[in-house]
């Protein structure tokens, strides 16, 4: 054996391994290999000496907050006991999916991790779900969100979430909350910057759940998921193209009168499911109120529905309502217009200067007073 062939066994000797007899004999009589063995040993000793100098003699105790432990799911158990390379396993699964001819891959791509953090929080006491999305960047227009809504019999919860920074898969958020147990519903247009509320910093990581304590209410459970886009339907990301039975959904509506755009609510949506008298109410300052209902009602004219388009004629003018998704399974809707309508007189806390639209039950919208 020559030195080149024995060199790797010199290294193995340093590690306490046994080596082939031929290699052992060569190293024993070869000065160069002996010198290499000494050099390797010296290097190891020197590294350990340096490490001894490096190590801190004092190391502070960590602060480990107790976290709720969940039982491992079957998938987690499978992952930890996988005996074949995970890449190979993942490839195998991928092939199965591909061969099955499904569109799952296409769907997965649209929901893949990205710069948008979709936050879902579960609100006590009834576990109601609220969502908001923020971008994990410095964009002041999109890297925060403010949610409010009634919670409990009469309470009002306001949540303000602000992006702070992102590290790997984790995002740090500044969260402010306020709960007023006896508050009235503030109605549309309500704003609360929570400037007098201390901010709580939380790290959000997909798959983990954080709890935020809200005085007077309890703990909100907060989860996050990264998306590669701001979802078109924040509260119904699973919504299919076809509307469900008794579903009336208005997504990013644009109303055109003749050749004039009356309003354009791109990015907003309102959906009512399981309501046999679902009705769209649109209010626009200067244009008054339009009601577009899935059931006939007094004073309404009939319009036609075709996928994401609703056509009708009112007061001698042709209207076209365009939406981003098919609105209903029905072929007809019924429409009325009240040019003198005052939102402030009908909806508590609302302002006449505030444009809005929502889908609710017809009977509710026809009440004397309504809440948002």
């Amino acid at each position: 054996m020559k030195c080149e062939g024995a060199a790797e066994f010199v290294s193995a000797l340093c590690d306490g391994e046994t080596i082939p007899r031929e290699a052992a004999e060569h190293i024993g009589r070869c000065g160069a290999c002996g010198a290499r063995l000494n050099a390797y040993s010296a290097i190891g000793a020197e590294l350990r000496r340096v490490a001894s100098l490096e190590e801190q003699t004092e190391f502070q105790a960590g602060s480990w907050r107790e976290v709720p432990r969940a039982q491992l799911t079957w998938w987690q158990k499978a992952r930890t006991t996988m005996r074949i390379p995970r890449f190979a396993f993942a490839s195998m699964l991928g092939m199965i999916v591909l061969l099955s001819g499904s569109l799952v891959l296409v769907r997965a791509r649209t929901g893949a991790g990205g710069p948008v953090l979709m936050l879902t929080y579960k609100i006590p006491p009834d576990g109601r779900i609220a969502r908001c999305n923020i971008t994990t960047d410095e964009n002041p227009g999109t890297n925060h969100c403010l949610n409010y809504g009634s919670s409990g019999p009469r309470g009002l919860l306001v949540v303000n979430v602000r992006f702070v920074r992102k590290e790997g898969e984790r995002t740090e958020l500044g969260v402010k909350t306020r709960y007023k147990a006896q508050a009235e519903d503030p109605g549309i247009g309500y704003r609360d910057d929570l400037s007098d509320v201390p901010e709580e910093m939380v790290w959000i990581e997909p798959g983990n759940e954080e709890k935020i304590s809200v005085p007077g209410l309890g703990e909100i459970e907060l989860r996050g998921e990264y998306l590669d886009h701001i979802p078109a339907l924040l509260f119904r990301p699973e919504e299919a193209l076809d509307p469900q039975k008794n579903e009336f959904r208005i997504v990013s509506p644009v109303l055109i009168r003749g050749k004039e755009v009356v309003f354009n609510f791109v990015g907003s949506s309102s959906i009512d499911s399981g309501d046999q008298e679902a009705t769209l109410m649109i209010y626009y300052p200067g244009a008054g109120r339009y009601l577009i209902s899935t059931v006939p009602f007094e004073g309404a004219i009939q319009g036609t529905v075709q996928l994401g388009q609703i056509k009708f004629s009112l007061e001698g003018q042709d209207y076209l309502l365009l939406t981003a998704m098919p609105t209903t399974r029905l072929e007809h809707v019924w429409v009325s217009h009240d040019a003198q309508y005052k939102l402030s007189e009908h909806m508590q806390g609302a302002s006449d200067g505030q444009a809005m639209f929502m889908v609710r039950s017809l009977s509710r919208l026809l009440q004397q007073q309504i809440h948002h």
Partner: protein
Amino acid sequence: MADDRELWERICRGDTTAFDVWYRALGPKLEVFLRQVLGNRQAAEDVMQETFAQIWQRPNGFEPNRGTLRAYLFGAGRKRAAEWWRKQGEVNTPVRSERAECKTETASLIGDAFARLPEEQRTLMWLREVEGQSYAELAEILEIPVGTVRSRLFASREELRKIWQATPRAKKKEDA
């Protein structure tokens, strides 16, 4: 320290005392290791903390019959370090350790040579020579076959030997 299996079960149950004992025992060693890999004292401390925090928050992936908890910890630390490098955009770029500039001359002899090794070789050498990880544990940590561990260790040692012996001061020391 308790048996790995028992310790892991306690960590999984959220036993803060057991976890803190483990943290204090291995935290300094992991930090020193990460300092060699990252060449940056502050980053090493951060990555060390993140590694422990990740295990504390989501304890999964460790199998007592496949390796030691210590190897699992260093493997997790190494992965975190790799993420750090990816963020820096300088993967596998040899860096000079801060330690080499602020410690004694004798310490910097090997430190200078070591810092010139590629990150992968630094990792391998440190885990073997300082942490005493077995070939099987190194294979687990680095996710490579055992045979590859042996050949890469040889390549790393040989590379370090050449660099070390090429430095004038090392020559002097070796000659003496």
